[in-house]
């Protein structure tokens, strides 16, 4: 479900990008758009298309890969707007980490090749409504806020690292700190939740190894075959990978 949420966000931002572009191009010089503006429009269209495919494709992993194209397209748009720093951070965080995490989750749980019949959601119209509404709200806010703001694409970069850093830590330092606190809270919450689940799963006497706190060792479970059928205690990624590492190949085949 997190995939749906992520793709919906991506679509929303892609939708935001496309109309904002055309507006800028139209008012600035309708008959003589510069090369950058044309490139911006074309990349926007590609990004939009990729976002659409992301939410409509029936193949789960393909959706994640199209999400890579979408997020990469957005990075290119940032680049074209001279926001180099933001562009590379976008690639680093979203393409390099978020999508890898997403793919990891998909492959760990289920990643069938070919179509997934249950990849279709019954909520598609509700989702579409929400996506269109949030896109409209975003477009409206952005257009309203930056109606009279122009980026001089030929001048010095307006989004260089120095400029971005200065504006972030001079004008926007309070929201920045609030966001850090929010992320910290999420992190602490995740740790609390995972430890809670671990404590619960270790309460039956059969599963004595989970409560010991030390990292589970693979050869250990090999030497004691009886320990292999213990209930899944995959609460954190480290253990999760361990579980997969020891899973019987035949079981893995069956899952696919």
């Amino acid at each position, binding site marked *: 479900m997190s995939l749906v949420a992520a793709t919906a966000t991506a679509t929303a931002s892609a939708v935001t990008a496309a109309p904002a572009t055309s507006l800028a191009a139209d008012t600035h010089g309708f008959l003589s758009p510069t090369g950058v503006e044309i490139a911006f429009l074309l990349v926007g269209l590609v990004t939009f298309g990729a976002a659409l495919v992301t939410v409509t494709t029936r*193949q789960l*992993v*393909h959706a994640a*890969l199209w999400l*890579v194209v979408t997020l990469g397209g957005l990075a290119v748009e940032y680049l074209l707007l001279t926001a*180099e*720093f933001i562009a*590379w*951070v976008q*690639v*680093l965080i979203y*393409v*390099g*980490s978020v*999508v*890898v*995490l997403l*793919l*990891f989750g998909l*492959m*760990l749980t289920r*990643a069938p*090749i*070919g179509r997934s019949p249950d990849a279709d959601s019954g909520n598609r119209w509700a989702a579409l409504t929400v996506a269109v509404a949030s896109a409209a709200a975003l477009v409206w806010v952005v257009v309203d806020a930056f109606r009279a703001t122009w980026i001089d694409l030929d001048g010095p*970069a307006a989004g*260089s*690292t120095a400029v971005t850093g200065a504006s972030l830590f001079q004008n926007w330092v309070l929201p920045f700190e609030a966001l850090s606190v929010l992320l910290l809270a999420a992190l602490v919450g995740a740790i609390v939740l995972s430890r809670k689940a671990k404590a619960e799963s270790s309460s039956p006497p059969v599963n004595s190894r989970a409560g010991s706190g030390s*990292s*589970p*060792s*693979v050869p250990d479970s090999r030497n004691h075959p009886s320990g292999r059928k213990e209930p899944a205690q995959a609460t954190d*990624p*480290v253990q999760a*990978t*361990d579980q*997969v*590492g020891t899973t019987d*190949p035949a079981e*893995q*085949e069956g899952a*696919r």
Partner: protein
Amino acid sequence: MTDALDVTLRLLIVFVVFLTFPLIVGQTEHKVMAHMQGRLGPMYAGGFHGWAQLVADGVKFAQKEDVVPAGADRRVFQLAPAVALLPYLVVLLAIPIGPGEGAVGQVLDAGVFFVLAVMGVGVLGSLMAGWASANKFSLLGGLRTAAQLLAYELPMLLTAASVAMAAGTVSLPGILDAFQWWWLPWQIVGAIVFFVAGLAELQRPPFDMPVADSEIIFGAYTEYTGLRFALFLLAEYAGIIVLCGLTTVLFLGGWHGPWGSDGLGWVWTLLKTAVLAFLVIWLRVTYPRLREDQLQKLSWTLLVPLSLAQIALTGIVKVVIS
């Protein structure tokens, strides 16, 4: 016109470096590993000490049939090697080998972020290969790749941020311009963490759990044959070049040296990169493979705290000297 010529020339040079240096590292690996194990290594191809062994390997790979398994996801399977290889080519563009603008493919304002971001994209190739092969060993390899990337990306970023803090810029030539010799002891912990994390991201031994041949054949690349397989191997060796070059630039002062750094700065860069590449090979011969849980433990309980400590140290020194 001269602009276009300049750009073309730079791209051409970077491309040639991209095609030759990984082969040199590969050949060195053959010979160094052999001699460390009391063997001779390749001796016949090309005549003199088997210098053309990898060329012969390339010819062999090109002749092999390019097989796509029947159950595989065809397009993703075929695209994966390109996704794995191209990021390293792009990263090479941003690594400066000498002083001045003439010695770097492209000066980037946010160079550190660029190289780390693009290197992270390369791992997507392994993930795609692992999934699209429709093979349980490939899938396991892909999973291990992803887990490894998630664990080791963070210390890499943190230590790179430490250098950026020290230099007051995130541009790679800017960092080199600000470099002083005493940064070496100052950032040494960061350098080691960066190098180790980079090795893990490249899946080089002792961090080659994702391709552990005794358990999962060749991980995500199990089903690949011919040129596509060769491309994955090339990506690994190009990754070594990129990692060693980056460590050189960020932590070892790049073209700075005790003497002659103005005219012959590029020699220093190449020398330091070569020494680091030798170290990569040496580590492969020396250390046994880390198990998956040891791998994760090393990252989260050792490298991440060390890199945070390095950032704290950098911050304190920076405040004291300014």
